[in-house]
């Protein structure tokens, strides 16, 4: 397990948990939760600076971009054009090519708009971005994204921020089976067991934000997620026992008094 590295776009990491940095009380809590999660990649949003108050604290002062790999996202973008603009700016702000593409289709469900997502992925990959892509759990769409050159496929396990857990293990497994790039569950995890389920299915990693940030104790939950991702990965390698319909005693029956 110690040699089990997570490779993405030519970089490799020991942690398979990627965490978002939104929804926390303040930057101190964000930094403590990220540290407890063991994550080495953090997602960040790109937003206008407040030109009226430039002295507001900045995320980069709390999470060192040299220590953590910043993964700029397009959260809140509903068109391919907005997502592309956002990531071009992100690349100029940060200076790296690894990005997370997400184009949403609906305010209520935050379900991805796959038509716009495919279009944006195509443009970004032509511009040499390394694109990790949030997508529906449709294996056909996942294959198209991989064929376009996306460096990671990230289907939802349940709607963003819902905490419902992995609702679609069949689809996630199909996507994992066919993929030649990392597959991560992105969205839907609510608690540690959900993260373990995703990893036991054979996911290469899990991306989450709300499950940690909105826990009663975010730092304790970050630690739990760290362990759950490792436990799930270990169980995946160990290979679970077959499920049986009836009991099977684990103590020998021979010699019973």
């Amino acid at each position, binding site marked *: 397990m110690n040699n089990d590295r997570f490779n993405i776009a030519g970089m490799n990491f020991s942690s398979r948990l990627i*965490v*978002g*940095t*939104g*929804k*926390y009380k303040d*930057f101190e809590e*964000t930094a403590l939760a990220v540290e407890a999660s063991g994550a080495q990649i953090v*997602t*960040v*949003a*790109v*937003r*206008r*600076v407040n*030109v009226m108050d*430039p*002295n507001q604290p*900045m*995320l*980069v002062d709390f999470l060192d971009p040299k220590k953590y790999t*910043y993964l*700029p*996202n397009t*959260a*809140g973008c509903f068109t391919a054009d907005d997502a592309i*603009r956002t990531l*071009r*700016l*992100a*690349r*100029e*702000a*940060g200076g790296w090519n690894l990005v997370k593409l*997400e184009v*949403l289709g609906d305010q209520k469900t*935050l379900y991805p708009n796959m038509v716009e997502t495919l279009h944006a992925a195509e443009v970004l990959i032509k511009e040499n971005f390394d694109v990790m892509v949030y997508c529906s759990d449709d294996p056909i769409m996942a294959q198209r994204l991989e064929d376009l050159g996306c460096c990671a496929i990230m289907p939802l396990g349940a709607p*963003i*921020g819902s905490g419902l857990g992995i609702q679609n293990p069949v689809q996630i497994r199909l996507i994992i089976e066919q993929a030649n790039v990392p597959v991560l569950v992105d*969205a839907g995890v609510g608690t540690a067991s959900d993260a373990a389920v995703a990893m036991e299915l054979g996911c290469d990693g899990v991306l*989450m*934000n*709300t499950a940690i*940030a909105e826990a009663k104790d975010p730092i304790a939950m970050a630690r739990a997620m760290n362990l759950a991702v490792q436990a799930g990965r270990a169980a995946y390698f160990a290979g679970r026992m077959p499920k049986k319909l009836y009991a099977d005693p684990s103590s020998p029956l021979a010699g019973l008094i």
Partner: protein
Amino acid sequence: MVNITLNGDPHKVQKGQRLFDLLQDLKLDPGKVAVERNLEIVPKSTYQDIKLDEGDRLEIVHFIGGGKTV
């Protein structure tokens, strides 16, 4: 003075003001932001060369905490 749009709001700058100087005036660290001018990315290496014109639309962005839709 010329009128520009800065992050969606009207803003006045000296005619011919350089982008680099605008960032200085706004007390923004050029290393921590990215700038789009009239929908085109401005490479950091050219902040000193870009002179602002009447009607320029600037977007100055940075990284904030964010997971999914925030």
